[in-house]
């Protein structure tokens, strides 16, 4: 806060009246304790204070960013931007900056966690799986974000998060689990470890099964990966502008059992409540009973599509990545895990997907693999662990009308291929999922 106030006070003196200007700062202490082979082997902490300066002048825009140490003075930083903006190309897409009415004051002083507190969480995780090989991390983060612009907006927000994520391994198996919360105290690392240990124990000596179409019961991490792909590539208004989004608003594109909300204000949501422009994010109904209802917008995409901004601009990416939802909640249903499994005639339980890549953005055909706990389900019962399978499957179709048999009754923050803390989801039971290869290729 002191760095920000000092920088801003000085910077304001040197901004000409003739330009539009936006100044942002992120200050953070990010700490991560990493373990492998059942002991802590890496333990890191990073203090960050980065400044972003955008100047728009005579239809041209420049953005410079530096950490605070590499800026000689606010004056010289602004002078540099003023020189460079004249060499910049015309910026047809400039969409202005939020007005002062959008200011948000969410700053709070927070002390970062000690490495000993993370080590104790790791210890509890590891100890539940004695004899098995544990690996993973426990992280704690404190982030502050400040934004000011020449429209008079002055916003700040603070957020804390903590995660534990780990696996247990044997020579033939592995099992993983993950938890996220705003506070380290709210994470039960023993319960998390036990879940990973049990999956690893139960999935020893897996058998290969033939590729083909299977019913699947997906754990939260697998569900999260499907949704994050749709969020980043589908519901991003920039993808819509570029013609690569598969999303058709107001059509029954998904099964009616699915309702997806983006809500940064929900109790214990993770992340900032303001977007990179400094304005409060809107709470959005993304999918209502299977019908896509909204896209994620930034200033520029809203201008280009002549729609309302939803304020989902990512910090650090500017507008180049488009709008991304970072507080997605898939509404839970009514089925317990046991009920979902008991409904399967012949299918596969998948705990986690791995290395998923889009083959075609419009159909959202994605290939990837399973890992860290997969089981064959026959006649309502788990019968044996199964090995690696490669899927090649449209993520849109996987959630299509009639393909979602049931939605789990419990949800939690789940990890995804695009990071943690973005999605809070239950398990899903899907009718068809296309596996195209086994261990032998």
């Amino acid at each position, binding site marked *: 806060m002191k760095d920000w106030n000092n920088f801003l006070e000085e910077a304001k003196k040197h901004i000409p009246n003739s330009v539009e200007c936006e100044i942002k700062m992120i200050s953070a202490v990010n700490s991560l304790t990493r373990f492998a082979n059942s002991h802590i082997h890496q333990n890191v902490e990073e203090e960050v204070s980065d400044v972003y300066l955008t100047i728009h002048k005579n239809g041209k825009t420049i953005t410079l960013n530096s950490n605070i140490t590499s800026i000689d003075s606010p004056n010289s930083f602004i002078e540099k931007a003023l020189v460079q903006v004249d060499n910049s190309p015309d910026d047809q897409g400039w969409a202005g900056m939020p007005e002062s009415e959008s200011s948000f004051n969410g700053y709070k002083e927070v002390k970062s966690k000690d490495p000993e507190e993370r080590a104790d969480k790791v210890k509890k995780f590891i100890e539940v799986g004695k004899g098995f090989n544990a690996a993973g991390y426990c992280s704690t983060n404190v982030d502050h974000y400040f934004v000011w612009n020449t429209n008079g907006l002055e916003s700040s927000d603070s957020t804390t998060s903590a995660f534990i994520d780990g696996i247990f391994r044997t020579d033939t198996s592995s099992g993983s689990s993950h938890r996220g919360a705003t506070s380290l105290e709210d994470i039960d690392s023993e319960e998390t470890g036990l879940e990973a240990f049990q999956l690893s124990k139960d999935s020893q000596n897996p058998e290969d099964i033939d590729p083909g179409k299977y019913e699947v019961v997906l754990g939260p991490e697998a569900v999260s990966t499907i949704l994050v792909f749709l969020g980043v590539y589908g519901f991003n208004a920039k993808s819509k502008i570029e013609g690569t989004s598969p999303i058709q608003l107001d059509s029954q594109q998904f099964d009616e059992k699915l309702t997806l909300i983006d809500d940064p204000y929900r109790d214990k949501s993770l992340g900032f409540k303001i977007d990179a422009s400094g304005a409060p994010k809107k709470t959005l109904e993304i999918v209502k009973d299977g019908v896509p209802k909204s896209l994620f917008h930034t200033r520029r995409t809203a201008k280009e599509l002549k729609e309302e901004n939803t304020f989902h601009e990512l910090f650090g990416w500017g507008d180049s990545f488009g709008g991304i939802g970072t507080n997605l909640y898939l509404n839970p249903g009514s089925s317990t895990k046991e009920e979902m499994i008991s409904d399967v005639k012949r299918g596969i339980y998948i705990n986690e997907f791995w290395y998923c890549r889009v083959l075609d953005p419009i*159909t959202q055909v994605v*290939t990837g693999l399973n890992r860290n706990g997969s089981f064959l389900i026959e006649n309502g019962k788990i019968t044996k662990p199964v090995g690696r399978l490669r899927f090649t499957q449209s993520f849109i179709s996987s959630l299509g009308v009639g393909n979602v048999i049931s939605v789990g009754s419990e949800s939690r923050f789940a990890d995804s291929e695009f990071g943690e803390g973005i999605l809070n989801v239950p398990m899903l039971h899907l009718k068809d999922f296309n596996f195209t290869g086994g261990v032998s290729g």
Partner: protein
Amino acid sequence: MFDLLQQAVDSAIASGAKYSDARILNSKSRSISARNGDIEDFNESESIGIGIRALVGSSWGFYSTYDLSNASIINSGVKAYNIAKASARVPGKEFPLADVPVVEDEYTTPHEKNPFSISSSDQINLLAKSTEEMKKLGSSHASGRLDFWDTEKWFFSSQGHKIYQNIVESGGGISSLSIGDGETQIRSYPQSFGEYRTGGWEVVESFKFENELERLVEESKRLLTAPQCPEGTRDLILEGSQLALQIHESVGHAIELDRILGWEAAYAGASHLDLKKLNKHRYGSELMNIIADATLPGALATFKYDDEGTPAQRVNIVEEGIWKGVLTGRDSAAIAGVSPGGMVRADGYGRIPMVRMTNVGLLPGDSSLDEIIEATDDGVYMETNRSWSIDDIRLNFQFGCEAGWLVKNGKITDMVKNPTYTGITPNFWGSMDMLAGEDEWVFWGTPNCGKGQPGQVGHTGHPSSPARFKNVRIGVKG
């Protein structure tokens, strides 16, 4: 800078660390992206900071800060020590560090034109004109990007290393995306996500974007109406940049010693390789000779010392198909009983150095792409990566390419779209029976290799030339 580094390291050692090293980095970057003739993003970034590492017992502690005041520097050493010490609550077996020569030296990447000395207008104009022209030629979305990095590193260790390096990297690429009825097709140059090397603006000038614009647009449009790549088992011919990614994913990551030792198991994964099989395991056919060489002039992962002060070097990884070497750091090399290879790097002052691919490449053969095609009766030739996926022990992979062409009776015939192939690492490499020679050996660069927690983005190099693989499963569909 060395005085500051010494203060930090002395502070960690005085606190009780058995070894400590520290790096100050001054990193400059410039990135420009364009779409359809407009500049979408122009960003310049600069950062200075210190990262200090302390070894206590069986764990590294690492602390980084932007604050280079004397008080902060001394505190950094204490913090790194305290972070490492906290790890003792869950201890492992203590390990030594492999011996490396203690040197004082300086190095600067050879380059002709520092990209930050070139007017940004010239760089902007190149992208704006290239993408504008492709748009006029009928591309649905013509895009391009350029990236430049100028990184100064000062390294100091408690053993007396004192090294300054200035690494300059440049590159970029252009793409034409065509949108059809419910599908998109793309063609990119020099490769998907751009081509990057150590060097200056001359790297980008050598690409000569202007010669490729028409071809990219024409091919991306033609792909929309091309037939699907047929399913089945056929001979597969890979162009060099796709083969570079194949090397990266199915060899480069698999030979990282930290993976083999399980240090990355929870996230990036482990490896199908077992150190007990070193010097015995057949990785591929006798044509397969893989090196890891951080001394190749102009390649993306070329430097003089790694981020532990170990000299850059060439290490033989696979010789005539037999697995011979691994990528190491001083800690992992000592644990495994192998020589440290100078392969540890971090992506900034704020990240702990870790095992990273250098220039992991396939040595050239004695054939040519033309000869390979002439010698193929029934195959598919694939160019430029579009998607990549491999399991967490680097065994089961599936790649998609931007474009494919059927090869019939020694001749390229029809273009096919959505070409994919899948396989198992040793079987696939074992099926390589023709390999193009030195004339077609290119130092492909990958600027976006993700690894580690917290995540780091690595710059790796992959010299390769086109090759043929027998009886590969192609045309996998969803």
